């Protein structure tokens, strides 16, 4: 199932970059946005990722014009829009609740922005039909909104948001009301749609997996501040701090000590050399559970692999992978994840067994800061 290809390619050249500068919004004493600076590249799919209350929706709404920041600038291309009312900003928007107009049919909903722009009835009908085709809802134009399923409503909301060829598209957790399978399917479809339309897209979600799936770049937000910006790969493999490391993917964080000359140690083992230990006072080793493998201690090249030895405390079968927890020196709990194929002798593990786990040195992630988030 994929989004049909049609000649919307021409729009990509008219996508706009977004420049957010020093954007601040306070509610009483609470900073929803704290002097945020962000550059969204023309045509990219950027995700704002963060927990609830982090400010991601506030930022999106500010870009759309639905809340008024206390200070700052928002420019679409060269044009300052922060003082413009929402109906003059020309962005397409999809809400979590779809917000489809129940007193209009599917076609009327989609035609609404076209009518407002004075598009002739004939042309509007044509563009609505094309849009419906793009989201795979051909022929459903005359349906009433209540007759649609959740997934269908979502597509109508999408069609309505791009039919008038906006140069920026904003989406506020549009898939969170859908069930898991449909959500995963729609994630891929949205990605295809974006490739086709070439529109600059800002997407808000709290689901890190969704962010990793769909984005060109991810912006991690916490407490109204941008903590890290990068590609999914960057964010996952090179988290900048404990918050990002903990929020994205699973991880175990182990405290590291510094010897004063650029080397970091965990319980005596050398973890990393030539590390620029500039302003932080603590450092942590971040280990992704799937990067650990069971090894026979003594059989590994210490130049390539760091070995942790300990006792299995927990073992849980979870279908496609299994999850286990190993305690090291009775102090630290290392979680690791591995495949459950029949040949995997790791399946024979029991709580209480003594085991050695190896981490490839190239998979080492070090972050400044400690385990208190």
């Amino acid at each position, binding site marked *: 199932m994929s989004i049909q290809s049609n000649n919307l390619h021409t729009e990509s050249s008219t996508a706009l970059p977004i420049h957010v500068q020093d954007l601040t919004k306070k509610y009483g004493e609470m900073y929803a946005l704290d002097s945020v600076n962000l550059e969204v590249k023309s045509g990219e799919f950027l995700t704002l990722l963060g927990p609830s209350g982090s400010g991601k929706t506030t930022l999106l709404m500010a870009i*759309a*014009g*639905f809340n008024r920041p206390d200070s700052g600038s928002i420019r679409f291309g060269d044009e300052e829009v922060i003082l413009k*009312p*929402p*109906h003059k*900003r*020309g*962005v*397409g*928007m999809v*809400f979590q*609740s779809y*917000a*489809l*107009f*129940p*007193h209009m049919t599917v076609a009327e909903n989609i035609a*609404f*922005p076209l009518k*407002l*722009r004075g598009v002739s009835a004939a042309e509007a009908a044509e563009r609505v039909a094309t849009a419906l085709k793009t989201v795979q809802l051909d022929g459903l134009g005359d349906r009433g909104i209540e007759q649609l399923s959740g997934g269908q409503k979502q597509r109508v909301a999408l069609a*309505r*948001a791009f039919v*008038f060829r906006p140069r920026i598209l*904003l989406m506020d957790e549009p898939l969170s009301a859908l069930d898991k399978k449909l959500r995963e399917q729609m994630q891929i479809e949205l990605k295809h749609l974006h490739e086709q339309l070439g529109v600059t897209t800002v997407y808000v979600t709290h689901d890190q997996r969704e962010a990793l799936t769909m984005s060109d770049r991810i912006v991690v937000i916490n407490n109204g501040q941008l903590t890290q910006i990068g590609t999914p790969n960057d964010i996952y493999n090179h988290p900048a701090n404990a918050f990002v490391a903990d929020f994205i993917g699973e991880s175990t964080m182990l405290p590291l000590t510094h010897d004063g000359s650029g080397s970091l140690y965990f319980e005596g083992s050398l973890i990393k050399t030539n590390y620029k230990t500039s302003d932080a006072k603590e450092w942590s080793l971040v280990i992704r559970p799937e990067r650990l493998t069971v090894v026979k201690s003594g059989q590994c090249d210490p130049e390539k692999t760091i070995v942790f030895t300990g006792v299995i405390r927990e073992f849980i079968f979870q279908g496609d992978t299994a999850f286990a927890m190993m305690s090291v020196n009775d102090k630290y709990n290392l979680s690791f994840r591995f495949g459950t194929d029949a040949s995997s002798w790791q399946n024979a593990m029991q709580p209480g067994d003594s085991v050695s786990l190896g981490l490839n040195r190239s998979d080492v992630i070090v972050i400044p800061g400690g385990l208190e988030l």
Partner: protein
Amino acid sequence: MNWLKKPASDTQLTHGDRLWLYIIAAIVMFLLVIPTLIVMPMSFSDSQYLEFPPSNWSLRWYYEYFESSKWMRATITSLQVGTLTMLLATPMGIMAAYALFVSGHRASKLLFAFLITPMIVPVILIAIGVFYSYGRVGLNNTVFGLVLAHAVLASPLVMIVITSALRNYDLNQERVARSLGASRIKAFFVITLPQIKFSVMTSALLAFLTSFDEVIISIFVSGGSNATLTKHMFAALRDFIDPTIAAISTIMILVSTTLLLATQFISSRERK
């Protein structure tokens, strides 16, 4: 009678256990409805004295009503005032309800309370106060004066109904409409209003009825050729029991019932 043994409550009481409740409820409902119903057949009685059941049936009191210029003028005045009140109070109430609901300002709670005061201040006070004030500016015995007073009495009702409707409505739709290019005003008229139209209709009917049935202010403020139906009826009730009133009451009951059923019908349509 095995219906009596069927469970009727969440604690497994049967209908039989609850019989006493059903009987009390039935009596109360009977007493609530009966008085108004009794009036109706009495209006068809031929006699000068009110009697039930009527010994002779006739329509004479209806003729009295329709042929009396006093009653007819009063009826027209009441209909006029009611309609004008409806036309004034409904938009006034909707605008106020919408503004206060949408604005996040701290002032809006206070304003809402302020606009509700006509319902809290005893009507007799408003009546004599308005009577006095109107006396000084010559607004007594005018349709305009009465409509203004009635509108102030009716708009809190409109506000309450509309506020409740807005609570059950997804305001995001207005935001979407604005993101798609509609100004705030356009979004309200094209998107929001059609979706609360049933509440608008109900509140308009309520406004009409509030004015049409209003007694106290009308007694003081309307008069002469602009006297309302209620004013004349009240005078008649106090002084002597004119059976014409039975006929008028019957008509008013029919009007009220029709309007009530209309709102029930409207709100059931809305729920779909």
